């Protein structure tokens, strides 16, 4: 069972990179691709926590959530700054 879940987590990690690459190629925006990568990496981390997690694994997943929150708030902040900045072409 542990082996199966480890394999599933590895598969989800690969899927995370493929999905993020697809999002990046399709939209050419890292603000779209990065959250996709982090969400699927979190899914892989949660899968790894399914069977008797070690404190290191737990801390790793908690750190990933922290990074995800930091990145998403940074992206939102940057998007907000872009939308409020006046266009140089308009008076």
């Amino acid at each position, binding site marked *: *069972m542990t082996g199966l*879940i480890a394999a*599933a987590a590895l598969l*989800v990690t690969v*899927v995370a990179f*493929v*999905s993020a690459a*697809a*999002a990046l*190629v*399709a*939209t050419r*925006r890292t603000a*779209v691709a990065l*959250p*996709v990568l982090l*969400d*699927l990496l*979190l*899914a*892989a981390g*949660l*899968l790894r*926590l*399914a*069977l008797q*997690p070690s*404190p290191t694994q*737990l801390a790793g*997943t*908690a750190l990933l*959530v922290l990074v*995800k*929150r930091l990145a*998403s708030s940074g992206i*939102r902040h940057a998007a907000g700054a872009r939308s409020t900045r006046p266009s140089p072409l308009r008076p």
Partner: protein
Amino acid sequence: MELVSEEFLKDAVELLVRLVESAGALVIFVGAAIAFVRFLDAAVRHRHQPHRFVAVRLGLGRYLALGLEFQLASDVLRTAVAPTLREIGELAAVAAIRTALNYFLGKEIKEEQEQLADERRSSTARSVSPP
């Protein structure tokens, strides 16, 4: 008189814990698989609509939150047969971290929903307003 032996109870709870944990893992894996297919679909067919990716991520977040609930349920079950204070302490730490993860995940889902609603409102306003 002993109705159920302690060993039997331990085995039964252990089996239940494994079942609930496996259900949680299955929910997370299925959610990730569905999200992968929908991400590829959004990348191929709706490449100029980034809000589609946010919608898929919202769906994935719901699966992750559900999977975490299952994992928390298994932690609660484990406390039924945790004999030593040290084991109960470790379980409490694991449950606390999972609860915090679930809380932040829920908060993020709410924020993403608001962001998606804002984007939809602004795109509707753009399509309605005269050129």
